[in-house]
């Protein structure tokens, strides 16, 4: 398969179809405008005319108009009507557009998907995550999050989201069970092509415009009903019958428009599938993977069906035909046979037959070759897979019964125990205080959190303090999986824990800032910083204070401190600053100084941070205190800290 020329062809066809679609829409809108204008003309003329004319109008419609059509239609009037009609349709389109472009996450959840945890221990889930990352590399795109439709046994996958940044990829359980690694790669690469080529966006646009056309028909229906009722109530009221006629005409336009619009939309969707198939081959350079995947769908009884009720609306997003259509005219996907023979021109026309059960992880590949060798005899295939299934049974049970004791590492990968670990980091050694803190933890309302925290207490408190930061880093992916409400409760509880001893300790503050810095963006909270300070001179005092504190934590020796301080001050461009004594500042003044530094202009920040780093690394080593303070300052200043990796 020459995938580049295939892609070009699919792109060209899409272009032609989209142009067709636009022409159809323009014609429809112009038609509607003309119809509305004619109706208004009729009504107006009839009000101006005498009763006789009105009577005639009811009888024949083709009565003598008091003013001619051409006179009535000044450019101005027509422009006004056009504006009004087009405006109404545009509003309908905009409404649908906003409704649809809610981001991939929402679509995936609507379809019944749940996010696959980035640190999952399940080998199959790990495999799909790895495959997604591989394909992200191959297509040079950001890695999307992955959702699993655990209830679906049909083999399918989808991509949702309008931009690469908010895109997600979803797979059904059937897909995980039936596909080998290479086939998964093909399927995922296909989905990546949908994201890369902006198919979601294109589709949402088409749907929104179709909705606008549907809206024309809807207005027609309203007018028809309203007109009929009015003319029934009072035959003398003006315009009733004309309105009804306009209604019928609009209904016809809406209906026709919808028919052709849907037809073109499905054709576009089919072209995009060919494009995605061709791109999948480009990304994997392995046509076998995706063509085998399609063959398996063809030979699998539930096929690609997705049961979720939202599937109809989203059918264009999927890898295979998720919802069956009676005619191929409106199918969102080309027939499997066509897709396979485009990828594999020498295909012999046989599907790969699969049974409705889990394929083995280890023996998957060998099973597959046996099955494809004998696929022309379905009975043999059934027997063969039954044998495989019988062999598989005991292995599965052994796997599930083998449970290993969990270490702190694996606890950090579970959202619930990750919360407990973080709580533990803030627990006081003082018995009274920690009692009060446990009270706060209980109030947080996470079920069983107190027990979990107590269980992990030993492991966390015995941890070397230098490991604190890396432990926090380890828990971050898990913490990102909690819900927004849980997160705000979590933050509140942390603040309560910090204040429980009625003291504000530097390290509590540091850890808290680091946590917030990494987690806030995930929960849609952005920090507002007002750039106030343009030059370093306006923050001289604040910088002096922060640098002094850092120097004091860096060493015990007075001369060392002095040297570290002047090193940092020099690298920031202050040559006259002197080291502050420890009693000249408090923790509170330090915190407000850091907050002031955060108000610097963005270009100043790296310079200040570099100066602080120079101070900390003056003695060629960086201790835990320095590292935590630096990370926290960088977090508050909302600057990345590339230095940490270099330092350790």
């Amino acid at each position, binding site marked *: 398969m020459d995938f580049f020329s295939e892609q070009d062809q699919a792109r060209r066809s899409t272009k032609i179809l989209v142009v067709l679609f636009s022409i159809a829409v323009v014609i429809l809108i112009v038609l509607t405008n003309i119809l509305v204008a004619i109706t208004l003309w009729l009504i107006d003329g009839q009000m101006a005319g005498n009763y006789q004319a009105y009577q005639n109008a009811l009888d024949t419609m083709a009565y003598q108009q008091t003013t001619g059509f051409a006179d009535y239609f000044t450019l101005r009037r027509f422009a006004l009507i056009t504006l009004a009609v087009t405006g109404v349709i545009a509003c309908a389109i905009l409404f649908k557009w906003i409704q649809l472009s809610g981001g991939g996450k929402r679509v995936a959840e609507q379809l019944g998907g749940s996010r696959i945890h980035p640190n999952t221990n399940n*080998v199959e889930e790990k*495999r799909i995550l*790895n495959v997604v990352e*591989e394909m992200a*590399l*191959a297509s*040079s795109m950001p890695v999307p999050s992955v959702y699993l439709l655990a209830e679906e046994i049909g083999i399918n996958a989808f991509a949702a989201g309008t931009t690469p940044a908010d895109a997600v990829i979803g797979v059904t359980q059937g897909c995980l069970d039936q596909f080998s*690694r290479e086939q998964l790669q093909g399927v995922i690469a296909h989905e990546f092509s949908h994201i890369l080529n902006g198919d979601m966006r294109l589709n949402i646009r088409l749907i929104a415009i179709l909705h606008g056309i549907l809206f024309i028909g809807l207005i027609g229906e309203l007018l028809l009903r309203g007109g009929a009722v009015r003319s029934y109530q009072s035959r003398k009221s003006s315009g009733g019958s004309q309105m009804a006629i306009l209604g019928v005409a609009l209904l016809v336009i809406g209906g026709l428009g919808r028919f052709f619009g849907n037809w073109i939309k499905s054709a576009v969707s089919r072209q995009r599938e060919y494009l995605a198939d061709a791109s999948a081959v480009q*990304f994997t350079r392995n046509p076998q993977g995706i063509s085998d995947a399609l063959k398996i769908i063809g030979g699998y009884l539930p096929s690609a069906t997705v049961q979720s009720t939202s599937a109809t609306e989203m059918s264009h997003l999927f890898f295979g035909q998720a919802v069956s259509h009676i005619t191929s005219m409106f199918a969102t996907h080309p027939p499997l046979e066509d897709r396979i023979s485009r990828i594999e021109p020498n295909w012999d026309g046989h599907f790969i037959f699969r049974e409705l059960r889990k394929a083995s992880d280890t023996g998957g590949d060998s099973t597959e070759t046996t099955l494809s060798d004998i696929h022309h005899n379905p009975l043999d295939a059934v027997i063969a897979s039954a044998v495989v299934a019988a062999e598989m049974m005991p292995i599965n049970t052994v796997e599930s019964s083998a449970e*290993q004791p969990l270490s702190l590492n694996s606890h950090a990968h579970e959202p619930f125990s990750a919360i407990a670990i973080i709580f533990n980091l803030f627990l006081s050694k003082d018995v009274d205080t920690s009692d009060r803190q446990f009270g706060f933890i209980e109030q947080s309302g996470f079920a069983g959190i107190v027990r979990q925290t107590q269980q992990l207490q030993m492991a966390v408190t015995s941890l070397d303090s230098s490991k604190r930061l890396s432990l926090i880093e380890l828990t971050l992916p898990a913490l990102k999986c909690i819900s927004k409400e849980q997160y705000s409760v979590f933050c509140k509880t942390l603040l309560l824990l910090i204040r429980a001893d009625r003291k504000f300790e530097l390290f509590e503050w540091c850890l808290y800032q680091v946590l917030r810095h990494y987690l806030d963006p995930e929960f849609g909270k952005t920090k507002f910083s007002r750039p106030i300070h343009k030059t370093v001179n306006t923050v001289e005092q604040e910088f002096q204070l922060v640098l002094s504190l850092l120097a004091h934590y860096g060493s015990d020796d007075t001369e060392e401190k002095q040297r570290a301080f002047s090193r940092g001050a020099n690298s920031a461009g202050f040559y006259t600053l002197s080291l502050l004594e420890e009693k000249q500042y408090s923790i509170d003044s330090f915190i407000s100084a850091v907050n002031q530094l955060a108000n610097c202009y963005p270009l100043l920040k790296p310079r200040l941070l570099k100066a602080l780093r120079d101070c900390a690394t003056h003695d060629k080593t960086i201790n835990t205190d320095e590292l935590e303070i630096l990370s926290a300052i960088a977090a508050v200043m909302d600057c990345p800290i590339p230095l940490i990796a270099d330092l350790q």
Partner: protein
Amino acid sequence: MDLSLIIFLVIVVAAIFYIVSIYNQLVTLKNRYQNAFSQIEVQLKRRYDLIPNLVETAKGYMNHERETMEAVINARNEALTGLKNAASNPSDPAAIQQLAGAEGALQGALSKFNVVVEAYPELKANENMMQLTEELTTTENRVAFSRQAFNDAVTAFNTYRQTFPPVFFAAKFGHPDDASLLEFDDSPQIQAAPTVSF
């Protein structure tokens, strides 16, 4: 104002916009392939980090294969130094050559290791080992895919640079030469079947 003057101005402005867009497109494509190169580096590094874990896990099961494991570790260390040299000096062909050679040796050592692992069913069934194998597989794939993505990005850049009309402007905008595709010199290793010795 004269109508023809207006039309002339509009055409000039449109032309300027077009030329600016060509410039931007060239820069975008160039950055894209440069980023793709750094991805290769990241993935190679990732693999070197994984290998000690793999060997550590295998150690408990296969004491008699010390030689194979040492070969893997040595090849890994060699490749890591090669990568460091190449990363600090990407334009030096000798450094790339050294990396490519070390990579090939590591590839050979690893495939030998994998053949040996086949002989230890309980090692293969070990959950840690399964996860590590999966990790190693994905990393191998990533290395391959990031190389491929780099070459795709370079091709896109070169194609755009050579098409009309960008071909007129490319040299003036500071892109006089085509970017070169990355070809590791590992074809002998690919052609050689892995040797099995017990």
